[in-house]
């Protein structure tokens, strides 16, 4: 059972790390500021979600598990809000094509 849980954690956390890598690659490769924001807000959020899901079976208490879920929810909220604010500034600084 422990082996199965460990394998699940490795798979979920590993997948999460791949999505963080995708977000970073997008940040470096995507052509403009607004496109790069897509990479940061979407891929990183999925990566964090997978890492949280992978760590949940190892939480020592219900409260620790809830804390992990809260971290993910708060990160989602802040990513959604911050990406819009940065997008608004980036759009205003550059004349539209």
């Amino acid at each position, binding site marked *: 059972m422990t082996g199965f849980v460990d394998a699940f954690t490795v798979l979920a956390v590993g997948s999460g790390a*791949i*999505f963080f890598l*995708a*977000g970073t*690659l*997008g940040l470096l*490769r*995507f*052509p*403009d500021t*607004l*496109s790069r*924001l*897509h*990479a940061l*807000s*979407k*891929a990183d*959020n*999925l*990566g964090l*979600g997978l890492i949280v899901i992978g760590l949940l079976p190892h939480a020592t208490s219900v*409260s620790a598990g*809830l*804390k992990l879920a*809260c971290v993910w929810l708060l990160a*989602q*909220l802040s*990513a*959604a*809000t911050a*990406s*819009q604010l940065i*997008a*608004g500034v*980036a*759009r*205003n600084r550059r004349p*539209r094509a």
Partner: protein
Amino acid sequence: MNAVTGARDRTALFALLVRAAGFLVLWIVLMGPSLKDLPLGMVAAAAATWASTALWPSDSDVSVVGVGRFVLRFLPQSVAAGVDVARHAFKPSLDLEPGFATHRTALPPGMARGGLCAVMSLQPGKLPVAVARDGTIEVHCLDVRQAAAGPMAADEAAFTGMLRDGMRNA
């Protein structure tokens, strides 16, 4: 008339107390259960409740069924958004056509409209960048070749399904 107003006040007060209890539970989850720290948690919960009334009026309410439907739609869409970005990022030659689309929202300015924009920004290929006074949301699309109008209307329908009248007209 006074009885109606009194009942409404009591409902609003009850809603605020429920909200304060929710903030206190969140504080306990984040900071850990400790009786010694509880007074500080109560002060934090009271301050959060007071601040929240500016964004979310006490007479507004959400539909539990609507929230359930929204979450069931939001989570798979969030996964699709991450996978879509990863697919583009790992592709040896970038195949993107970034551009803008617009969506006219029926939601009033304020918390509801801001919430919709936040939700849209975590959905596949879309990032709201500005909202005009008349409710036109300018959305940056990662690939303008993909249809945007249908999914944006569906995003709004799912979001509006969570809100009850007080919030829709806030």
